[in-house]
């Protein structure tokens, strides 16, 4: 899987995320554990490097910010 960088756009990260989840589900492995946790998500995350996992998280928060651009997750007020 191609290396992904922090510069990846949030929307692209989402598509990449969905592609990974769908690919993991195609493996026909048990999907849910007894407690309802989606194992395919965990398997897919574990297939990534730590840096790629961080990029997935970054893609998520970027996507949320993009979708809610009028009320972003973080406001930073610079001091004078």
């Amino acid at each position, binding site marked *: 899987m191609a290396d992904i960088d922090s510069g990846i756009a949030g929307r692209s990260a989402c598509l990449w995320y969905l592609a990974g989840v769908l690919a993991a589900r195609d493996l026909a492995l048990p999907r849910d554990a007894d407690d309802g946790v989606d194992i395919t998500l965990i398997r897919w995350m574990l297939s990534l490097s730590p840096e790629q*996992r961080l990029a997935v998280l970054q893609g998520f*928060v970027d996507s*949320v910010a993009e979708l809610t651009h009028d009320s*972003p*997750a*973080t*406001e*930073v*007020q610079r*001091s004078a």
Partner: protein
Amino acid sequence: MIRQPPKFKEALEVLARHHVDFVVVGGVAAVLAGAPISTFDLDIVHDRSATNVARLLDALTDLDARYRDLTGRVLRPEARALEGDGHHLLLTSCGPLDVLGRIGLGRGYQDLIADSSIERSVNSRSASSGWRR
């Protein structure tokens, strides 16, 4: 006023660039370990030695860190406070950053580092520095 989502990797790279010794904990650590969850802040436990706190302060200056103060005051972290075992809930140019002297059961950096399994250097010339979880 700057509006932006958290930038986890950039924050970690600033800390590593200043050779700060720390362990990533909390939600980002869970993601690094493969948990499919999300979080909006970065939590670290830092080495509270005077030399490391000085490096941490330099990094926090680069990150324009200040306490998350609901009244709008700009309160900057100071060395003496960072050498203690309290929690410092900061807002930076890379998003919320919680700098923790100790976490559950009173565990500090030295207690956690033995169980940390990932180390990454920002570049090949700083192999002794990096971020850990």
